[in-house]
């Protein structure tokens, strides 16, 4: 029997990711520390770079492939670029992290590539079953990645929490998909689209939409389905948090756009009011929750909730402009956040303060290369001009007002006004606080689980009892382990590189956003039926 004809060229980004993750997993088995520590992340970068290159090659093909199970169009590819950017940054940030060393580099990076593959399948899905496969392929590796910092209690807690709540989200989504299938009689988006017009008031169909919306809202951390976000963000290793914050958000919004603005467009009257209400709740909950957080990762978690609220505005307007504004915002959201996460990563390694806001004290005076990216990131998230955040907000407001959601635009700007209270607190910590006096005290971190056998062997080889160096820098690249409030400067050029590049891109798109706007507009044109 002959299968469906496959456009292998259009499928090539998927294949590159699968091949990349296999290679990374296998090379990660090598005994040599050099290969595991240096070659594996390098191969990950190669895989991601190849994927991005193939994606650019396939730009503008706009084709449904494999029996219309997947759609490779500019929206999928634009989002792919966002995932790849997040993946590349996360690879740099993980290069010398304890998390990847403890989990085993091969597994760690392979999981990350799997997750990116899941994201791509999710946003390219043109069929409910494929959608669910993508959803799980994205989620399961992330549950594991959250727990890779094996000797930190919070990391394990984070992974477990994410697993449980994520599973509830998946179950809800699956239930909703089943109901949509029941109402529409088919799993392909075309079947759903045909049913949407006819059954928009059907109870089964409406419940299906509601459950799907809730399931996806879990992933996008839209309030009131956001409760896992602060805990998981705080507990997960910082590079993983950064990756999750940007790539998962983009994937979740990608599929929301694809499904709701796509086949469910005729049922807009059913879901748009619900979504608009969620946007308001999300903006309020996120912005109020972030005030007063001392953990930077928790603060960014609530900020990501608030930002999700802004982006919903781009979805509910159901215009091409709205889609373009959402994609644009997702793209700049990546660089704005990654700059911040890179700085947090760097300071986590240098000080013993973790991601506490006090780890940034005195940064402006001593570390301009970290201080400026953090500042630019915060100002951009708050929407100040000459950063990409300004045009991101402007574009979203433009889209909202354009289709009669002026009140949502007002909610967005009021939310941004509240958000100044916590974004500027970080800027104040960087520039207006003096560095704390250096202290050499060790803070004990409870050991509740063993590391990987390899890490334990290495520790014994160094003459240290495994687990006692937790919370300190284990990699020999950093010299003597230290646990000080204002640590010595470490050579971590790749982290600084990520911070600086992201900050520069944020400024560049704040001065000349035209190229990115073009990409976003192309992505918006994937929806042919819209105005």
């Amino acid at each position, binding site marked *: 029997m002959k299968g469906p004809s496959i456009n292998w060229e259009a499928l090539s980004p998927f294949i590159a990711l699968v091949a990349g993750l296999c290679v990374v997993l296998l090379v990660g088995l090598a005994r040599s520390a050099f290969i595991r520590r240096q070659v594996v992340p390098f191969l990950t970068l190669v895989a991601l770079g190849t994927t991005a290159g193939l994606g650019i090659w396939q730009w503008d093909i706009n084709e449904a492939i494999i029996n219309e199970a997947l759609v490779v169009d500019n929206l999928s590819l634009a989002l792919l670029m966002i995932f790849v950017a997040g993946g590349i940054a996360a690879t740099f940030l993980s290069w010398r992290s304890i998390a990847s060393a403890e989990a085993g580099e091969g597994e760690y990076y392979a999981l990350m590539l799997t997750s990116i593959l899941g994201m791509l399948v999710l946003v390219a899905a043109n069929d409910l079953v494929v959608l669910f496969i993508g959803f799980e392929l994205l989620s399961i590796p992330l549950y594991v990645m959250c727990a890779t910092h094996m000797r930190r209690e919070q990391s394990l807690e984070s992974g477990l929490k994410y697993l449980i709540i994520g599973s509830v989200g998946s179950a809800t989504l699956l239930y909703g998909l089943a109901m949509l299938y029941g109402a529409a009689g088919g799993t392909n988006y075309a079947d759903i689209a045909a049913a949407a017009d006819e059954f928009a008031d059907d109870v089964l169909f409406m419940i299906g939409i509601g459950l799907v919306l809730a399931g996806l809202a879990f992933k996008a951390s839209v309030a009131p389905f956001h409760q896992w976000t602060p805990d998981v963000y705080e507990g997960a290793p910082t590079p993983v948090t950064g990756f999750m914050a940007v790539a998962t958000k983009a994937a979740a919004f990608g599929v929301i756009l694809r499904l709701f603005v796509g086949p469910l467009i005729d049922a807009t009257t059913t879901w748009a009011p619900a979504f608009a209400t969620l946007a308001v709740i999300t903006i309020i909950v996120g912005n109020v929750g972030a005030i007063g957080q001392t953990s930077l990762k928790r603060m960014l978690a609530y900020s990501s909730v608030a930002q999700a609220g802004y982006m919903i505005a781009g979805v509910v307007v159901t215009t091409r402009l709205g889609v373009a504004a959402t994609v644009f915002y997702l793209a700049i959201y990546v660089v704005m956040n990654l700059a911040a996460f890179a700085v947090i990563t760097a300071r986590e390694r240098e000080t013993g303060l973790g991601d506490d806001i006090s780890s940034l004290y005195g940064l402006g005076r001593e570390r301009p290369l970290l201080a400026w990216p953090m500042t630019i990131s915060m100002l951009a998230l708050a929407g100040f001009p000459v950063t990409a955040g300004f045009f991101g907000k402007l574009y979203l*407001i433009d889209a909202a007002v354009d289709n009669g959601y002026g009140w949502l635009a007002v909610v967005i700007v009021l939310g941004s006004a509240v958000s100044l209270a916590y974004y500027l607190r970080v800027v104040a910590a960087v520039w207006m606080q003096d560095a704390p006096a250096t202290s050499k005290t060790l803070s004990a971190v409870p050991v509740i689980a063993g590391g990987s056998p390899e890490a334990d062997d290495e520790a014994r080889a160094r003459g240290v009892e495994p687990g006692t160096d937790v919370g300190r820098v284990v990699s020999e690249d950093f010299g003597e382990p230290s646990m000080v409030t204002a640590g010595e400067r470490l050579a971590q050029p790749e982290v600084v590189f990520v911070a600086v590049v992201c900050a520069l891109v944020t400024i560049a798109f704040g001065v000349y956003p035209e190229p990115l706007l073009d990409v976003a507009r192309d992505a918006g044109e994937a929806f042919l039926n819209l105005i």
Partner: protein
Amino acid sequence: MTIHLSILVFFPALMGVVAAASPRTLAPKILLLGTLIPLAYTAYMITDFDAGAGLQYVTDDAWIDELGIRYKLGVDGLNLWLIALTCVVAFASAVWLSVRVPEDRAGLFCFHFGLGQTAVLGAFVAQDLALFVLFFDLMLVPFYFLVGQWGSGDRAAAALKMVIYTLVGSLLMLAAAVATAVLSRADGPLTFVLTDLQANPLPESTQKWLFVAFALAFLIKMPAFPFQGWMPDAYRSMPLPALAFFSGVVSKVAAYGFLKLVLPLFPAAVNDWNVILLILAVISILYGSIQAFTQTNARLILGYSSVAQLGFITLGIFAIDTAGQGAQGALLQSINHGLVVAPLFFVIALLAERAEGSEDIRDYGGIAFRAPVLAALFLIVALATLAMPGSANFAGEFLILLGAFSSVQALAFLASIGVILASVYALRMYIRSMHNRVGPKVTSFDLSVRDGLVLVPLVVAIIAFALYPQLALDAGEATVRSTVEAVLR
């Protein structure tokens, strides 16, 4: 010579970047160059300017097609003299910085200052609504850092308060600006260019709401009653050279915004709302004046006097009299106030040096005996502040009141009380510091040459302007008159 406004606008920020990378002693000199070139440019522009030719030296390039935002800069009668004011005050502040280099991170200070000047100049020359909003919001960033890093007292809190207050208004204005552009396009492409927006006026019901957002942003920025809550903390904390520029120029952007954006874009709403604005203006005048002669902190005296003066300016703008005299007076007074308040802040710094750093006027007294030159300069500025006949301020306030009397007599009567109160607070401050018994902390000495470099040019500018205020009036007359007539129609 062709005038490139981009050079005028971005030169200070560019030099600021260079200064940031320079050693401490060199940085202010580079900033000085960064403010000198725009000053020279403006001086040439004033001689070259043709009062009857409308918008001149236009730079109009496509910037963001997708959003309909154009990079359009231009100079007309409204902004010409405000640009000049900006350059003069910035130059004076830069001279001050070069003779008194900040102890700490001087390069970064100069960078923020240069960025501030660029933002203000950009807001003045922008002929595109989105571009204006961008520069208007950008102004806040450098001053946030200047207060937060080099301020005194609880600087971080003061900086945060200032930003939150002013940005609430600015963000609403951003939404309103986008709404203006989106709603006024009639199936045409989206555009933010001011002349295009003016050509498609919005229905009155829409104008009303948009007007509120814009007015809120500008009233907070000024600040006007009841939005002055951020002012005392920010003024107490801000480092002096920055404060002179901030108080002298930044608040004028708000007044300019009313004249340039609000009146032409929302004429119908102006007719509906102007009574409320006028009442707020009169309250600002009275409240500001009363506060100014009860405060003892010299910075706050000036801060509240600015509230009162900006009340006068608002009164003039919204008087909407048939001859447009109120608005002309407001434009003139904007320049005058900037020109007098900046040297007053420098005088305060000099007084503080003679009184062990105190900025409380109760600690002053008798400084004039050993500092006659300083006293003379201070007196000239103080007399200009209270709008002594013969000063340009007199002409400005006279025109404002003339305009107000011909349209809203009762309010104009109340406002004229403010003229009397102005002489009370200005003279009180002068007498308490310069005359009276020698204060307990005072060790007086006369103005040094290097400080004279800052003060004398500003005082000369005040005198020159007093002699011939017609220069600024002539340049703006045609534009102001047509703006007001459009509202009256």
